[in-house]
Structure formats: C-alpha cells, structure tokens
C-alpha cells in the first residue's frame, strides 16, 4: 500500500517559490486502482513522482508497504523502484532499440540470464498482445501499441505497484479504452496496486475504485468513485463529473420551460443500484394522479453499479405532487428540487 503523509513539494525558480503540493494525505490500499484527477498544474505529476522518488517531497513522508522511502540510500531506492513500475504519457521508449530489447531492458539492468530474459519478454509481450511485434522498433508502432510496450516493460520486474502518468492522454478514445482494459486485467490477474493520474474523468469512471481530486496542490475531495460521482461536493469535482455525466438541462430546453410552463415543479432524481430497476415513475403517476414529464436523463455504470439521473417535471395538484415526492423519497431514491430552473 502507498501512504502519503503531509506530502509537500516546493520548487524554487529564481527567488519565487512554487508550491506544487501542499500537504497531501492519501492512502492507497493494496490491490486498488486509485485515480488522482486534476486540471493541469494541480500537482498530479509531482504527486505521482514522489512515489518512486523521481521527485523528493520537500516535507512529509511517502510510505510504501509501511516503509518510509525518503530515508533510503540511493542503492535501496533503485531496489524499491524495481518494485514500482511506471508508464508514461509519451511512453518514453528507446527508439534505438527493438520492442524486444525495450521490454527486456529492466531485466538486462538486473543482469538476468539471457535465456530467462527471452522467456520472460515473450510472456510479457504475449500478455500485452504484441508477441508478433518483438523485432519492430517503437517508431513503427501506433500509440496504443507503444503504450502496451511501456506496460510490458513496467511489468518486467514483477512490481507490486504500477504508476500511470497520464498513460492514456495521448491516445484516441478507442485505444484509451483498450489500454484501460489492459490495466484492469493487470490489476486483477497480478493484484498490482495501480495509482494513476489523469485529467480525464472518463478514465476514473472506467477503471478506478477510488478517486482523489487535486487542486492547487491539495486534495479537495476523495472517496470511492461511486460516492464522488453520485454526490460531488466541490465545484471542481462537479465540473469533472459533469464532463462525463452531463446532468445539466440543455439551454434550449430550459428556455422552452420558461416560455410554456409557469407553475411547474422540477426535480432531479438519482437512482443508484437496485432502485434503477423499479418502475417508480409510472407507479407514483398512477397512485397520486400527477403528470410526470422527463426532461432529461441518463444512466451510466459506475464500478459495475448502474447509476441514473433524471430531471423530471411534476404537474398536478400541489398536495398530490408533494405526496408523490415523499413516496419517491421513501423508495430510497435521492430527489431534490432543481430550484434554479424555476425562478
């Protein structure tokens, strides 16, 4: 597991101080896929680099499997780095070497016997699905293939932790999906703890169990992906969530509501898990004789749990509408009035 305890990083440029990290406390449990999201300049890249000491924290500690890594000698650091794989946005492969040689590099550094290197590289390339590309050079491969090589290389030393530095940010959506699937498979099959940083909420939704939102070097919100997505607290978090789960009413629809309706009540309903399956809408409509008009809605999957979001207009007698709403609430569906639409 990885623990950050009050980690701070200050850069000096001239006589200016830049505080990239301002006291980060986070705990990444073994076997988790933990995502750190933030806009550029939030400090994500400094944060992930403190884990393998590519950046040394100015203050605070980083513990890996309970061991404070900042106290280690440079030789011990090199040893622990072999237990922490890392992949990069721009892959950082050796263009002068074949795919085989790139993947073999960590093993060659460790002076692994030739025969073992051959076998292990073959297995790794099989695992990432590029066994037939071993003799090619990186510049003959696509971005997705290069990242697969990067992943194979990172796995060569059999690490217990994998750091992903914007690993899919240079890739198209389809390739991103395939790389994320591969990361999921790594996490499952090898039980490797994955810490990733990204600015794409889609990546977090796709594979992470937990998420931390980083802003100006601080963690402003953290929790399970489900919690954070279904109930974001901070403005930045809301923006990120909205980037993948648009729950805002389209402008045109909004204008239309203003024009044609005067006494409507508009509510946001959030269905999670089992409640997605209940036909609650038609039920309350019948029971309380109110009209429901779905203005907007979407359903996505978070962590394998369905999550729905509906914006519904209720019309009918006031007391009946109120009873309908109480009834919905009693069914464990989160419901709130969207007051700002009705002003």
């Amino acid at each position: 597991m990885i623990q950050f305890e009050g980690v701070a990083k200050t850069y000096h440029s001239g006589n200016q101080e830049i505080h990239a990290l301002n006291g980060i406390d986070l705990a990444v449990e073994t076997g988790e896929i933990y995502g750190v999201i933030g806009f550029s300049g939030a400090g994500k890249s400094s944060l992930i680099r403190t884990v393998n000491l590519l950046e040394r924290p100015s203050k605070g500690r980083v513990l890996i499997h309970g061991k404070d890594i900042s106290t280690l000698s440079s030789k011990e650091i090199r040893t622990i780095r072999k237990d922490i794989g890392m992949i990069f946005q721009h892959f950082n492969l050796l263009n002068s070497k074949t795919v085989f040689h790139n993947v073999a590099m960590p093993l060659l550094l460790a002076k692994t016997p030739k025969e073992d290197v051959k076998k292990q590289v073959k297995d790794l390339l099989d695992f990432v699905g590029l066994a037939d590309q071993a003799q090619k050079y990186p510049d003959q491969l696509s971005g997705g293939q290069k990242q697969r090589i990067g992943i194979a290389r990172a796995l060569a030393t059999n690490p217990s932790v994998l750091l992903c530095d914007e690993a899919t940010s240079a890739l198209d959506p389809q390739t991103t999906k395939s790389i994320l699937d591969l990361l999921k498979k790594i996490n499952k099959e090898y039980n490797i703890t994955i810490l990733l940083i990204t600015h794409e909420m889609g990546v977090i939704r796709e594979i992470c169990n937990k998420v931390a939102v980083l802003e100006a070097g601080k963690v402003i919100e953290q929790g399970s992906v489900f919690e954070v997505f279904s109930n974001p607290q901070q403005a930045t978090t809301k923006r990120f969530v909205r980037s993948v789960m648009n729950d805002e009413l389209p402008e045109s629809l909004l204008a239309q509501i203003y024009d044609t309706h005067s006494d409507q009540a508009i509510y946001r309903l959030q269905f999670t898990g089992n409640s997605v399956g209940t036909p609650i809408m038609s039920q309350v409509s019948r029971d309380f004789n109110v009209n429901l008009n779905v203005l907007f809605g979407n359903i996505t999957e978070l962590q394998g749990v369905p999550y729905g979001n509906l914006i519904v207009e209720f019309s009918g007698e006031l007391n009946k509408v109120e009873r309908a709403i109480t009834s919905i609430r009693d069914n464990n569906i989160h419901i709130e009035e969207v007051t700002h639409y009705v002003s």
Partner: protein
Amino acid sequence: MSVNYDQILEALWETIYMTGAAFGFSLLIGFPLGIFLVVTRKGHLLENESVSSALNMIINIFRSIPFIILMVAIIPLTRLIVGTSIGTAAAIVPLVFYAGPYIARLIENSLLEVDKGVIEAAQAMGASPAQIIFRFLIPEALSSLVLALTIAVVGLIGASAMAGAIGGGGLGDLAITYGYQRFDTFIMFITVAILVVLVQGVQSFGNILSRRVRRS
C-alpha cells in the same frame, strides 16, 4: 623543381595520420568530458554545480583560442610531451588540445537531444547513473553522436592542414611550402582537390554510419 607523386602520397598519409591520431586522443578526452558536461547539469543525473562550471570554464577557454595561436602557445608543453615542437607527431599535441574540448561540446549537444522522458523511464526502472549513461543516453544519441564526430574529423582535417604552418607536415605543409611560397599553382590545386575528396569521403562515411547505428 616540382613535387613528385611520392611526396603527395606521403603528405596525404601524414594528414591522415595526424587527423586519425589526434581524433583518437581527442575522443579519449572529449567523450568523458562531454558526458560529464551533461550529467552534472542542473536537474540531471549527477547534478554538481561546481564541477559543471569548472568544466565549462576550461572548455570555453580552449575553445576561444584560435588554432594557429594555440599551436604556438603550447609549444613548451608539446616539447615536454613529444620532445620536439616540429614535425607530424608534434602537431598532434595542439590538435588534441583543439579538438578535445570541441568534441566535448559536440558530445554534450548530442546527448542533450535525448528525450528527458527516456532518462526518467530509466530512473523509474531502477537504473544506476552508469547504466543510464551507457544503456540509455549513449545508445539513444548514437546516431547523432556519429554525425557530431564526423564534424569533428572534418574540423581536424582542416586544422591539421594549418599545422603545416609550423612544419607539421601533411597536405597543408605541401600547399604552403610548394603551392604558396613557390607559386606552384598545380600543387595548390592538387592539395585542395585531395582535401575536398577526403572531407567528402569522411562526411559520406559518417552519414552512412550514422544511419546504420540509428537502430541497434
């Protein structure tokens, strides 16, 4: 009296010998210096400000002395090393002082072209500084290094011709003593032609070799 065929051949051989020997020694000095120039830089593998600025100062001093002056200026040192200040062997000493720092700079430039990300990846996989230099930096820069060293050899051929001015032998000597001082236009033409062919040959060889080592 004109120059005979053997004299031209001998001069050519002297030029090749001077250039080759000077290149070998210069490389021995310049290559490690170039590596140190890179790795002691701020934010690099073995950041060390005092070593870095000392190296830079020394190299800049040598690089700012014109070769013709350098040659004369270090005559006592040349005498100390080879026992004489005249002749082909004596010319090699100033050539090394000239080309060593030059090669260091060229090597530095080539190594700096290597993507910082590659170095970061190397560090992340637990490579030691020596492993990073020899297994990442140099192989990645090899193609560019070969081109840079080609430039150094061409520069050395030019400088070795200048060494003729202090009796270093070689094609430069031939051109000056016969072509210039005795107004032998034909000899002047011949030496220039040989030098052009020599430089062309070296450059072409460098280009081919550079392409060859791009992938290893």
